């Protein structure tokens, strides 16, 4: 069966991949996930204007992550998110999708790069 690239879901899936990948490393609070992603990507990936919450809450609603409030007796209470088993399975699917996209894109762009290289050789 031929898989087809879904351009409409692309942005959403990138965000999900980033969040789930980060939560796969360790359970974290919402803000921690965002700061980690921002720092580890050198500021390339950012979640501004509360864009984190719709994604995180939908993942929670779908049972892919679970959010728990920390005990207020043990410091400032925060909502900590952790990956569920279903979330791990979905993350594996997302990683596979991403690998396929990258391979297909590289194969597609490869022709153009070879042509560019040939032009450079001729003009040199």
């Amino acid at each position, binding site marked *: 069966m031929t898989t087809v690239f879904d351009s409409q879901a692309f942005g959403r899936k990138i965000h999900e991949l980033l969040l789930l990948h980060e939560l796969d490393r360790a359970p974290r609070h919402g803000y921690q996930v965002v700061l980690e992603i921002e720092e580890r990507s050198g500021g390339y990936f950012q979640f501004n204007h*509360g864009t984190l919450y719709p994604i995180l809450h939908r993942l929670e609603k779908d049972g892919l992550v679970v959010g728990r409030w920390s005990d207020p007796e043990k410091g400032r209470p925060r909502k900590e998110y952790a990956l569920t088993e279903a979330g791990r399975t979905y993350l594996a699917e997302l990683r596979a999708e991403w690998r396929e996209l990258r391979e297909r894109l590289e194969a597609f762009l490869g022709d153009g790069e070879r042509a560019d290289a040939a032009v450079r050789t001729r003009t040199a």
Partner: protein
Amino acid sequence: MQRFGPALRRVAAELDLPRRARTALLLELAADLEDVYEHYRAAGLSEAEAARRAERMVLASPEVIRRLGRLHVNPWHGWAEEVSATLRGRLDVLLLALGVLPVLAVAIGVSVWVLAEHPSPLTTSMLLVGAVLASVSAKGAAPLLRGRSPERAALPEILVVAAIALALGLFAPVAGVWRAAAALRDGAPEQVLFLTVVARDGAILLAGLLLGVVGLLVWFVLLGVHARRADREVAALLSEDAGNVAAAAMVGSSDSVLPLVRRRHR
């Protein structure tokens, strides 16, 4: 928290969500704002710059708020919370309780009588369901005795057990008629069969219906108590009046949807 009070109030004004979702989201935003602010302060940013960055990262734009609204839409739950939360006074709860207790007493009485007179797997099952319903209702209401919010996790359990009681009650007459038809075929006296179906299975049906109603009432009352506490805590979080915050802190609890309020004003 007052540092972000105005910004939180702006978001709260646009959040058209069911009470619980709205409260939980506001708390999450408030906690994350404080933590991001502290993160940037620790990184050496000025107070103003740290607050600006925290707001930019955490606070939702109107479009994001609309997306959150669509995500949390649950008309039935929102309606139930709304109606239940309007039962403001102790008198309302007392009247509900007075409605619940006699029904519960009748349900228990009928179940025990039927079990004693006409024991069967169905009557035993109904008694067990009744016991489970009492147990989960007690679990849900127990925190009230310590001045805390009802146990939120118990609310769906109460609904599920009430539904099981209803289903079991409705199943009893069907199973009874089925058994009676089989017994008639085998030549059993009609009078005995009539008594069996009417007395035992009818009583199980009644017990099932009553337990179902009791479960729904308990769920409704606890949901209302939870929603009213959430209202007070959100009002305190968004209030500029420190006295209000302190007052709300008195009703907060460790299982509260807004534990921040309680902790900050100890």
